[in-house]
């Protein structure tokens, strides 16, 4: 089981009485590709932050890749996230003033896997895979097109060979053509590397790429009540 949530409750410390998440039982198996849809404000980003270990639950069990995130301290969760979970957002996936190589390098240094020298070759081949011309590798990414930026974002998310990839509305800022390219590249990559994909979007037209489709309102019981 890649992800398993049990009796999860979450409230922000500023408002301890306002339960944002209430999940009885929800799981994703290894290599599964799940499409989650729901309105904004439904606890979507909170759920993703719990799974990546950015936040910790108020109560309940969060098991990711067999590890209990709720029992880890902040530092352990940071390391876990760097090593096992890749994330792509709608925008601001990259430090705008750094180049593509630096951005990926930065993501690498928080995971402790391979040596530095192997890394730069890896980054270069990864960028080539995503059709980023070599002349653009060192430019500040803010100067590149949105489509290029999102492809570099996947490369950045993939560099530490995560077992889980979280995509939070990654296609919303792309046009039709770029969106199709992006989806096919992402899905190929996920299939190739046996990655569990959690794809969150309100764009139902993308749902047909996925075998499992979930409504956030069905997962999160708090949202249903509202």
């Amino acid at each position, binding site marked *: 089981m890649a992800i398993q949530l049990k009796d999860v409750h979450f409230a*922000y*410390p500023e408002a301890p009485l306002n339960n944002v998440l209430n999940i009885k039982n929800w799981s994703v198996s290894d290599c599964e590709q799940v499409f989650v849809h729901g309105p904004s404000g439904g606890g979507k*980003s*909170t759920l993703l*932050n719990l799974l*990546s270990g*950015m*936040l910790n639950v108020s109560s309940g069990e969060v098991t990711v890749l067999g590890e209990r995130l709720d029992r880890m301290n*902040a*530092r352990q969760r*940071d*390391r876990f*996230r*760097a*090593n096992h979970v890749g*994330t792509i*957002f709608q925008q*601001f*996936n*990259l*430090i*705008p*003033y*750094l180049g593509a190589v*630096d951005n990926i*390098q*930065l*993501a690498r*240094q*928080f*995971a402790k896997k391979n040596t530095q020298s192997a890394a730069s070759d890896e980054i270069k081949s990864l960028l080539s895979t995503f059709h980023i011309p070599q002349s653009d590798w060192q430019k500040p990414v803010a100067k590149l097109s949105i489509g290029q930026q999102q492809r570099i974002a996947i490369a*950045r998310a993939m560099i530490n060979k995560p077992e889980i990839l979280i995509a939070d509305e990654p296609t919303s800022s792309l046009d039709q053509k770029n969106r199709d390219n992006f989806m096919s590249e992402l899905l190929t990559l996920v299939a190739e590397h046996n990655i569990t994909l959690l794809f969150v979007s309100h764009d139902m037209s993308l749902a047909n790429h996925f075998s499992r489709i979930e409504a956030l309102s069905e997962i999160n019981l708090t949202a249903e009540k509202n």
Partner: protein
Amino acid sequence: MFIRLATKSLLNRKGSVLLTIMAMSVSIFVLLGVEHIRSQTKESFNSTVSGVDLIVGARTGSLNLLLYSVFRIGAPTNNIDWETYQSISNNPKVAWTIPISLGDSHKGYRVMGTTTDYFNYFSYGKKRQLSFSKGKPFAEVFDVVLGSQVAKKLGYSLGEEIVLAHGLGSTSFSLHRNNPFKVTGILATTGTPVDQTVHVSLEGIEAIHRNWQPDVTMPGSSSTNKPLHPLELEPEKITAFMLGLTSRMATFRIQRDINNYSKEPLSAILPGVALSELWQMMGLLENTLRLIAGLILISAVLGLSAMMLASIKEREREIQLLRVIGAPAFYLFLLIELEALLISFISMLLGTAGLYLSLIITRDLLSSNFGLHIGLNILSVNNTLFLLLVAVSTMIAAAIPSLTVYKVAHRGG
């Protein structure tokens, strides 16, 4: 990668970073400059006289005696008898003496009557002796040796004749017109009051005052033309004298003996003690300067902190992203601290370099106009400590934005 991220992030915010660097550089410039000039002034002050064991004058306060005998400031209270001087200098424990006779001036510069022993025994700084940049000590009665400033400011050269004035005003009407002096030597620059002194022999002082009446220039009177023999011109009184002992162990005993001298009331002072007493009086000024420099530094560091804090707002997403890719909250804390330290280090470099350059440029100006001799060794122990202090206070001030980032990061979401 860490340092790279910090530098690129700073470069990305060139405008505000540059202004902060400028503000900090200026304050470091002021901080180091004030400290440097303060310590240099103190050093040159303390080195106005050295190697002199005692200064003896008529009974007076030690500061007063020091001021008129060494700094040529103020007026002596009383003179001492030549016989007193003779008897003390004949003491077997006294190795040498330098008599000093004051009271005349030349265009505002004080005239000091003394003997050639002055050029042999008087020393300043770290036991440096006086040396001649041109010419030689006075040999004749009407020879004069000029301090470097006097020669430079008044444009005198060897062989020129000058007239001394009675009294200390720069526009005195009572001139010793009958007895012009000939410049035989010009001393090398010392950075002490010696530079602003006109030196003549005791006999010369005696000669111009003997039978002298102010402003009475009788037609045909020719007191100058009569050759004067130095032996006839033994002075009756001198203003003060400096002395060196054969053994420094005897200093306090000789001082006590002189203070208890029965024939006339005398004061003997240790120049080192008197100098530090005098400097202590300037302590308030010294502390005020330091206080101002410190406040300037604090304001610059707070400015840096404010700039960093303001930048956090616009960098929230960047911080969030770093968290997402696995950066621990502490990493972000260190990142902000590093950025602040980089700004502070660049400012230190600029401030120090700026001070160094301006010292090179203004050095000659300061020494010729103010008699202030400023060395170039800015990085004294004190200043190095100050730079360390700047670094530490930067880290403390940057803790405010750094902790903010840490909190934002820790809260997540």
